[in-house]
């Protein structure tokens, strides 16, 4: 099985950064209280981060993916079922692409 040096270094880097986020928060935040504004920003990062990610992904894809994303939102909102929502999104892209091109 293949294990390339550049890939290994990227994985180790990601692992160290991620562990520092998990454990460093406990170690640092207990000693040094961050300024209230930074503390609030840290708590609010997940939503804007995923919003930015989705906007970037959809801006690079065709209109069929925008409708599919709407179908995913509707499915997740109504059922709360992550697996089903993903399947609906993939099926929507497969079904709409012949109609809308892309």
């Amino acid at each position, binding site marked *: 099985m293949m294990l390339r040096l550049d*890939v290994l270094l990227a994985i180790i880097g990601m692992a160290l950064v991620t562990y520092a986020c998990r454990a460093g928060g406990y170690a640092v935040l207990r000693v040094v209280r961050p300024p209230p504004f930074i503390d609030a920003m840290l708590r609010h990062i997940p939503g804007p981060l995923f919003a930015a990610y989705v*906007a970037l992904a959809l*801006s690079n894809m065709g209109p069929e993916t925008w409708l599919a994303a709407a179908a995913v939102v509707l499915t*997740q909102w109504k059922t709360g079922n992550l697996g089903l929502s993903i399947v609906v999104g*993939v099926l929507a892209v497969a079904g709409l692409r012949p109609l809308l091109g892309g």
Partner: protein
Amino acid sequence: MATASSVVFTRVGLRRGNRAAIPLLIGLMPFALVVGVVSQGKGLSLLETLLMSALVYAGSSQLLALELWADPAPILAACLAAFAVNIRMAPMGAALAPWMDKLRGWRLWGTLGTIVDHSFALGVADIRSGGKDAGYLMGIGVVLWTAWILLVGVGHVMGGLVRLPPGHPLFFAATATFVALLVTLWRGLARDLWPWATAALVAVAALRVGLPQPVPLLAGALSGAALAAWRERRTP
């Protein structure tokens, strides 16, 4: 509330955590399979994929790093992606201090290493309802970690068997996962509309003017989070 002096770490707590993690596997499975399939599609070997899942063990950041993947591996971009997605976990460890303060050595640093959104939520709920056995958290973590590695591996093998061409509808599963996760993070128009819209617009604008990834992503995320923080502190 657990009084700090009475916190323990027992085998019973570990097993209780193991059982609490079982229902979470239903939600974990499609996500892990997607990460495995995308990883295969981006050219990572099974060994590299398993290694990433075992050592990083953070699905959203793995998926994000894989979206930015290139040959040779984008080491800096992958680390920045991991930081951008996972910095949200920094305050979690601090919030678990009532238990963490009583642990030492591998129990402390190992438990912190297994924190994910779901185990954090269950752990905080247990602390608030008077739970005193910190083994519960690691019990959840061990089951989710093991299942994560196995299911990502299954996804990689499936992706290899099917040999999907780039642009196949199945790859939309990665974007669909984040779209669905956004729905679960949504707390209403008043709180989230402007920060999220700002994040999306700033990110796309930064990409359009030619800034390289992950600059557009971070610019979008940080501007949206800054707006949310500013609004939260302005309204008491």
